[in-house]
């Protein structure tokens, strides 16, 4: 090649570095934490990192969940005891909330930072 100069080589190497750095994006695909909701005999999936509000139907009415700041909780429910609402927020993989009367089951799956001190924080 005629007259390739030093600057060319530098720019070329810099470009390679950038490309290799972009390959890092392939790692983060699998195992992203998601919220899986089972209701009405079907399943819904939501990304835990995307703020959403969603509502589901059941035998006693509607149950809605809210995902915010990487946590999810039951926003409102038509069941009598509202135990599911009292359960508060969950954010770690494996944690779940259930509204038994309305047949809504919410669970977090995928890899998240493990929380210290136990998996379930449903309180009665």
């Amino acid at each position, binding site marked *: 090649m005629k007259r390739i100069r030093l*600057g*060319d080589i530098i*720019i070329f190497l810099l*470009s390679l570095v950038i*490309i290799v750095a972009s390959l890092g994006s392939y790692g983060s695909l699998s195992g992203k934490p998601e919220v899986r909701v089972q209701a009405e005999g079907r399943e819904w999936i939501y990304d835990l990192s995307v703020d959403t509000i969603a509502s589901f139907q059941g035998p006693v009415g509607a149950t809605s969940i809210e995902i915010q700041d990487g946590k999810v909780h039951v926003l409102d429910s038509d069941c009598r005891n509202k135990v599911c609402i009292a359960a508060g927020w969950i954010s770690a993989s494996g944690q779940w909330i259930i509204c038994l009367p309305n047949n809504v089951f919410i669970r977090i799956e995928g890899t998240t930072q493990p929380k210290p001190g136990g998996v379930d924080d449903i309180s009665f």
Partner: protein
Amino acid sequence: MTYPSKSRQVRIEFVALLAACALFLSTVEYLIPKPVPFMRIGLANLPLIIGLGLLKEKEYMLLALLKVLGQGLVTGTIFSYIVLFSIAGTIASTTLMYIVYRFFNRWVSLIGVSIAGAMASNIAQLLLSRYLLFGAAARLIAPPFLVVGLISSILLGIFAQQFVQKSQWYNSLQEGPL
């Protein structure tokens, strides 16, 4: 056309000529069938690279503008999302290429300039596609997109370098550094 004449009219016409070359090349590229629509060769950037040695700063910016507008009009994309990609890519690449050429001319040949321009353009477009089109998934097409850009820009740069050395037309217009 006697180019060294400082007549403004002649110089402006010259910019239009280069812009027309860019238009011609982008039509040629548009007609080449590509397996994946997002992999671009960047033929239309050749006049932008070659023009670096011929145009003053303001004229160069004008050339970039005409290239984007012309391309947008011909492909009919001028009022859609897509022209944003063209604008972003062209602004990024012409700015970087101009800077590299202006200040590092002694250490960098047109090959390096071409690579720098292509990387700048592709990165700008990837960022744009992340926020407008694909969302976080845009990162997935980044590596192959960048690799294709690197290879094609090297080839383009080699051609530009050869052209600048061998073309009679170019050499008869040489006016000296910008």
